[in-house]
C-alpha cells in the first residue's frame, strides 16, 4: 500500500486495498455492501461520531460512488461537514457535494447557506473552497442567490489574487447558467480592466470570463480589444525569462496568449491604425518565432509554441484582410504537412481548410495538393486521412476538379468504412459543382456506385437522375453508360435503380443499336429483378410500364411478365398493386392515354443540392468553409416546367401516376431533398390519392419505402367521371402542410408587392400590399374559377409560436360562401412589434363539389415590408459600414447568380425590396449599396447592404450589416434567393 499523503485516513486506505484485492466483481460488490451497511449503521445509531469519522465515511461513500455504484444516503452528513471549522472536513464535504449532490436536491438550500457563510469568511482558503463548489455545480439557484456576491469579490481591491482567479471563473460558470448575474454597466469596464492586472493568473482567468461576455455582447465590451492587443504584444515581445513561472517550456504565457488571440477573433481587425499595426506586428512575430530553432527538444516546448501559432493563424484567417500574413500562414502550415509529428500534420490539414476559403490564400493552399494527396494515401491514422479528405474537398475548384475527384475515387476503394459515406457525398458534390463536362459527371457518379455502392445514399442517386433529366445533352450518354454498367455480373442495387430509371426514361436513345435493343435492355434489367429488394423491384416495374410506352414491340413480353403469378400475386402489396395497375393501364387504355401518362419526366426545378444539406447534417463543421460558390449545380432549366408547377395542370403536363409519393417536392421540402422523397414520411398517405393533382414535378419511379404508401387505383379515379378530377385536383389532403408551390410563390413577393399568390383549377388568390412605417396592409383577392359555389369558405391567418408576439396580424373573417366566378376580398393588417423571421400562415378551406379543400400558404409579409429607404453620403455610409464590423452584425453570402445579371433588373429588385438604393456611393460602379430602416414598434433597426456582382464568375457577394444580427441574417436570406 503506498503512503498516504497528508493526514491520511487509514480506514479509507484499508478499504481501498480490500477492494483492490477482490478477485471478482461479486467479491467487490459483497465488500462494498458490507461497508455500506457499516456506514449506514454508524450514521444511524452512533450519535457520537466525531468530525474525523464523518469525514472518513463520507469519503468512503464518495469512493464507492466513483467506482460506479449508487449511493442513496450520506448526503446530510456531507452537508454537516460543510459547517465544520476544520478545513479538511469542509473540503471533503464540498467534494462530496460537488460530485454527488443533484442541483435540484432539497439539500441545496442548506449547501447554499454554507457557501454563503464561507464566501464571506475572512480566510481566503475558505472563500476559495466555496467558490470552487459554486463553479463545480453552477446551478440556477446558486446564480440567483450568490450571483451578486461573486462580482464584488472579483473587482474589490481587498481581494487577494488567488481568490480573484477563482471568482472570475466562478462568475463565468454562473454567467453561463444565468446571464443576468452580471449587471450590465457598472462592472463592464472594471472586468475589462482586469486584462491589465499585474498577476498573470488573474489575467488568464479573467480573459476566459471576458471571452464569454464578448461572445454575447461584442459591442458592450469593445474596449477590451486595445487592452488585449497591448497585453498580447507585451507577452509576445518578452523573453522567456521575463514571466518566470508563467513561461512554460520557454514559451511565455502560452495559455494567456491563446486566450487573447481567441478573444480577438470576436472582432474584426482593430479600427485604430496604431492598434492594428501593433496586432499585425504580434502576428508577424509569432510567425517569425515559428521559424526560429527550438529552444528545447521537449514536445511540451513545440506544442505550446505551436498552440500559439495555430491560434494566431486562426486570427489571421478570421481577419482575412492581410494577404501577406495569410500567405505566410499558409507556407507555415505547408511545412507542418510534412512534419514528423502526427498531431501537427492533423492540425495543419485542418487549418488549411479554412485558408482554402480565403481568396488571398486559396492559390497558396492549392500548391500543396500533391502533399495532401500523399497524406490521404499514406497516413496511418484514419483521423488524419479524414482531415486530408476535408482539405481536398475545400481546395477543389474548377481548375483541379478532375484530379481531386480522381484521387478521392481512387482512395475510396480502400478507405475506412467510417468515412466512406461522407467521402461519397463529397465526391458527388464536387463532381456536380465543378462539372464542365456532364459526361464526366455521369461517369464519376456511376464509378462512385460501382466502387462504394453501399455508401451511396439515396440523395446521391436521386441527384444524378435529376441532373440527367434536366440536361438533354447527356441523356443518350447516360443511357449508354448505365446500360454498360448493368452488364457487370455483380452490380450494386443502387446501379440497378439508376439504370432502371434512366433506361425507363431514355432507353429509346440507345435502342437503335442492336446490342442494346429494347428486348436486350429489358432482359438485362429483368435479370436483376429477383436479386433486388422490394423498393427497387417497384422501380423496375415502373420502368417496365414505361418500356411498354417506349417500345410497343415488346409490349407482349412485358405484359407476360406483369401477368405472371410472381407479380400479380406477389405477397408484397405494393408490388402486387403496381403489377395489377400497370397491366391494366397497358391493356385497357389507348396508346394516346398511355403516352400521356408515361410522358418523359419534365425537368426538375432548380434547388439547392440535397447533398450539401445532407453533408451539413452529417458534419456541420465540414461545410463551414462553404462560404464560396454555394449553389452547386448549373443545370439549366431548359423550359419553364419548373415554373409551371404552380400553374394549373394542363394537358401538356404529364399526369402523375398513382403510386407516386410526395406530391410536389418543391413545396414539400425546398432545398432539402432531391426528388422530394425525403418529405414522404411527413406527407400523409392520402396525398397520393389525387391523380393528376400535383403537377409537373413528380418523382415517378423512385419508389417509396416498402409498405409506406397507400395505393389508389388510377382507374378508380378515372372511371367514375373525368369531370370530377379537377374538382379533386387541388385537394391537399393534409390540412396543415403547405400547398404545393407555396414557398416559391411566397418568395416572389420578396421584391414586389402585387401579384398572384396561388392558383389552381379552382381558386386564384391575388395579393396587393402596401406598408408604411411599422404597419402593413395587405389585401387578398379570392377568385372562384369554377362555376360551382364554394361553401364553408374560410380564410384564417395564424402566427405560429414566437411570431405571435412579434407581428400583430388582424384578418377579419369573410363571407363563407363564394359563388362560381365571383371574387371576394380580405383585408389583412399587420403591425411589426419586433423583428421576425417566420411568415404568418394562411389557412384556407372550403367545400367544392362535395369535397373539402385545403389550401395552406405563407402570407407574404416579411420583415423587409417594414423597410423605409434612407439616403446618405458616401462617407456617412462607409463610416457606419465600418462601425458594424463585428461578425455578429454581419450577414454575408456568396452565391451563384440564379438569374441573368442585369443591372437594371437588380436595381428594380433592390428598390422593390424596400431599401434605399444609394447611387454613386460605392467606388465600384458595378456594386450596389443601399441603406434602410426597419420599423418595429420596439425599435428602428438600421440596415446597410452591399451587393457585389462578379460578372466573370457569375457570382454575387451579398453583405448586410445591421445593429441586429437577426435582421441582417433574415434580410440576407430573403434577398439571396432573388438574384
Amino acid at each position, binding site marked *: 500500500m503506498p503512503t498516504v*499523503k497528508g493526514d491520511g485516513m487509514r480506514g479509507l486506505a484499508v478499504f481501498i486495498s480490500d477492494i483492490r484485492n477482490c478477485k471478482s466483481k461479486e467479491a467487490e460488490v459483497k465488500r462494498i455492501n458490507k461497508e455500506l451497511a457499516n456506514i449506514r449503521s454508524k450514521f444511524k445509531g452512533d450519535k457520537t461520531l466525531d468530525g474525523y469519522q464523518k469525514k472518513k465515511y463520507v469519503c468512503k461513500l464518495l469512493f464507492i460512488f466513483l467506482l460506479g455504484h449508487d449511493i442513496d444516503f450520506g448526503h446530510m452528513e456531507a452537508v454537516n461537514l460543510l459547517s465544520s471549522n476544520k478545513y479538511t472536513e469542509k473540503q471533503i464535504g464540498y467534494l462530496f457535494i460537488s460530485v454527488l449532490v443533484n*442541483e435540484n436536491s432539497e439539500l441545496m438550500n442548506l449547501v447554499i447557506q454554507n457557501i454563503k457563510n464561507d464566501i464571506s469568511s475572512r480566510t481566503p482558503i475558505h472563500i476559495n473552497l466555496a467558490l470552487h463548489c459554486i463553479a463545480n455545480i453552477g446551478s440556477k439557484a446558486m446564480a440567483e442567490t450568490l450571483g451578486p456576491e461573486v462580482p464584488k469579490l472579483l473587482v474589490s481591491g481587498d481581494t487577494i489574487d488567488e481568490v480573484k482567479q477563482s471568482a472570475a471563473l466562478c462568475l463565468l460558470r454562473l454567467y453561463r447558467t444565468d446571464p443576468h448575474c452580471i449587471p450590465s454597466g457598472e462592472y463592464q469596464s472594471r472586468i475589462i480592466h482586469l486584462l491589465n492586472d499585474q498577476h498573470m493568473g488573474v489575467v488568464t482567468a479573467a480573459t476566459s470570463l471576458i471571452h464569454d461576455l464578448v461572445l454575447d455582447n461584442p459591442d458592450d465590451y469593445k474596449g477590451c480589444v486595445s487592452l488585449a492587443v497591448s497585453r498580447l504584444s507585451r507577452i509576445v515581445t518578452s523573453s522567456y525569462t521575463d514571466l518566470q513561472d508563467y513561461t512554460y517550456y520557454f514559451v511565455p504565457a502560452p495559455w494567456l496568449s491563446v486566450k487573447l488571440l481567441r478573444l480577438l477573433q470576436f472582432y474584426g481587425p482593430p479600427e485604430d491604425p496604431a492598434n492594428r499595426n501593433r496586432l499585425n506586428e504580434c502576428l508577424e512575430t509569432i510567425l517569425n518565432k515559428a521559424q526560429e530553432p527550438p529552444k528545447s527538444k521537449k514536445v511540451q516546448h513545440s506544442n505550446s509554441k505551436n498552440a500559439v501559432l495555430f491560434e494566431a493563424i486562426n486570427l489571421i484567417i478570421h481577419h482575412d484582410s492581410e494577404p501577406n500574413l495569410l500567405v505566410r500562414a499558409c507556407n507555415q502550415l505547408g511545412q507542418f504537412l510534412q512534419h514528423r509529428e502526427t498531431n501537427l500534420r492533423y492540425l495543419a490539414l485542418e487549418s488549411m481548410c479554412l485558408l482554402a476559403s480565403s481568396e488571398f490564400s486559396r492559390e497558396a493552399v492549392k500548391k500543396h495538393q500533391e502533399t495532401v494527396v500523399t497524406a490521404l494515401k499514406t497516413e*496511418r491514422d484514419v483521423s488524419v486521412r479524414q482531415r486530408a479528405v476535408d482539405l481536398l474537398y475545400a481546395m477543389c475548384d474548377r481548375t483541379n476538379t478532375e484530379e481531386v475527384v480522381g484521387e478521392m475515387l481512387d482512395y475510396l476503394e480502400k478507405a475506412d468504412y467510417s468515412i466512406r459515406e461522407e467521402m461519397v457525398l463529397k465526391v458527388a458534390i464536387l463532381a456536380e459543382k465543378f462539372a464542365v463536362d456532364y459526361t464526366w459527371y455521369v461517369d464519376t457518379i456511376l464509378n462512385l456506385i460501382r466502387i462504394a455502392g453501399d455508401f451511396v445514399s439515396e440523395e446521391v442517386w436521386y441527384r444524378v437522375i435529376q441532373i440527367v433529366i434536366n440536361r438533354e445533352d447527356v441523356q443518350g450518354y447516360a443511357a449508354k453508360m448505365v446500360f454498360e454498367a448493368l452488364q457487370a455480373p455483380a452490380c450494386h442495387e443502387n446501379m440497378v435503380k439508376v439504370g432502371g430509371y434512366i433506361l425507363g426514361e431514355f432507353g429509346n436513345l440507345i435502342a437503335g443499336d442492336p446490342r442494346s435493343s429494347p428486348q436486350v435492355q429489358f432482359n438485362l434489367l429483368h435479370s436483376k429483378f429477383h436479386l433486388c429488394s422490394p423498393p427497387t423491384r417497384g422501380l423496375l416495374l415502373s420502368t417496365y410500364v414505361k418500356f411498354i410506352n417506349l417500345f410497343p414491340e415488346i409490349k407482349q413480353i412485358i405484359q407476360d411478365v406483369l401477368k405472371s403469378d410472381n407479380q400479380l400475386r406477389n405477397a408484397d402489396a405494393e408490388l402486387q398493386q403496381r403489377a395489377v395497375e400497370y397491366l391494366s393501364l397497358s391493356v385497357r387504355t389507348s396508346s394516346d392515354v398511355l403516352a400521356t401518362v408515361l410522358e418523359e419526366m419534365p425537368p426538375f426545378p432548380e434547388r439547392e443540392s440535397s447533398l450539401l444539406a445532407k453533408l451539413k447534417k452529417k458534419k456541420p463543421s465540414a461545410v463551414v468553409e462553404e462560404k464560396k460558390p454555394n449553389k452547386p449545380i448549373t443545370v439549366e432549366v431548359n423550359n419553364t416546367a419548373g415554373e409551371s408547377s404552380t400553374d394549373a395542370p394542363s394537358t401538356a403536363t404529364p399526369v402523375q401516376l398513382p403510386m407516386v409519393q410526395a406530391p410536389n417536392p418543391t413545396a414539400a421540402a425546398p432545398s432539402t431533398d432531391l426528388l422530394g422523397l425525403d418529405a414522404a414520411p411527413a406527407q400523409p398517405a392520402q396525398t397520393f390519392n389525387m391523380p393528376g393533382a400535383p403537377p409537373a414535378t413528380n418523382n415517378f419511379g423512385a419508389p417509396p419505402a416498402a409498405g409506406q404508401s397507400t395505393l389508389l387505383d388510377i382507374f378508380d379515379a378515372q372511371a367514375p367521371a373525368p369531370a370530377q378530377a379537377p374538382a379533386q385536383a387541388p385537394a391537399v389532403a393534409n390540412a396543415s402542410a403547405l400547398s404545393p408551390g407555396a414557398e416559391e410563390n411566397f418568395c416572389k413577393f420578396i421584391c414586389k408587392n402585387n401579384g398572384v399568390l396561388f392558383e389552381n383549377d379552382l381558386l386564384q388568390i391575388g395579393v396587393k400590399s402596401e406598408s408604411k412605417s411599422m404597419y402593413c396592409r395587405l389585401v387578398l383577392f379570392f377568385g372562384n374559377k369554377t362555376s360551382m359555389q364554394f361553401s364553408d369558405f374560410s380564410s384564417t391567418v395564424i402566427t405560429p409560436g414566437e411570431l405571435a408576439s412579434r407581428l400583430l396580424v388582424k384578418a377579419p373573417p369573410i363571407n363563407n360562401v363564394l359563388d362560381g366566378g365571383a371574387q371576394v376580398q380580405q383585408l389583412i393588417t399587420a403591425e411589426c412589434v419586433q423583428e421576425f423571421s417566420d411568415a404568418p400562415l394562411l389557412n384556407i378551406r372550403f367545400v367544392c363539389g362535395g369535397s373539402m379543400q385545403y389550401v395552406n400558404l405563407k402570407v407574404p409579409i416579411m420583415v423587409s415590408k417594414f423597410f423605409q429607404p434612407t439616403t446618405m453620403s458616401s462617407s456617412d455610409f462607409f463610416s457606419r459600414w465600418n462601425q458594424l464590423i463585428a461578425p455578429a452584425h454581419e450577414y454575408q453570402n456568396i452565391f451563384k447568380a440564379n438569374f441573368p445579371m442585369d443591372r437594371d433588373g437588380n436595381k428594380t429588385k433592390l428598390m422593390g425590396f424596400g431599401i434605399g438604393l444609394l447611387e454613386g456611393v460605392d467606388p465600384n460602379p458595378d456594386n450596389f449599396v443601399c441603406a434602410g430602416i426597419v420599423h418595429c414598434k420596439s425599435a428602428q433597426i438600421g440596415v446597410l447592404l452591399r451587393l457585389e456582382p462578379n460578372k466573370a464568375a457569375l457570382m454575387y457577394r451579398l453583405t448586410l450589416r445591421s445593429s441586429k444580427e437577426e435582421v441582417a441574417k433574415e434580410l440576407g436570406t430573403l434577398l439571396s434567393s432573388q438574384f
Partner: protein
Amino acid sequence: MLQFMLLFSRQGKLRLQKWYQAHTEKTKKKITRELINTVLTRKPKMCNFLEWRDLKIVYKRYASLYFCCAIEDKDNELLTLEIIHRYVELLDKYFGSVCELDIIFNFEKAYFMLDELMLGGEIQETSKKNVLKAIQAQDLLQEDLDTPQSAQ
C-alpha cells in the same frame, strides 16, 4: 471550454472523472464507456486528437494511465495536451513520481489539485509553483488542526 476530463487505466478502469457540465449519471457512464473503448483501440503513433460527436477529444497516455479531455470546436488542441501535461507534472511533484496507485488511494487529492488548475472548464492557474503553494497551504491546515485518530 473543457467539457470533461477522464482518467482511466489501460485496462479500462476509470480512475478520475471531472464533468464541467451537468449530465445524468446514465449519460456519464455511457460517454465514459464509449470513450474508453475508442481511445484504447487507437494505436500508439496515432494523433492525439479525434472528433467525437460535436466535440474534440484530446488524449494522452502517461505510463498506464490515459488522460482524456473533451473540448469544444474552437478550443486549442495542442494547449489542451499541455493542460494534461501540467496536471501530470503537478501530481508528480506532489506525490513524488506519481503512479496510478497514488491516484487511487488519494483520489480526493487528485480532485483538489485539479480544482486549483482548472475551474469551470477553464484554466485557472498555469503556474506550477502557485498551484503547489495552494495545495501545500491546504495540507498545512490539515496538519495543524487534525489530530491523528484511530482507524475504522
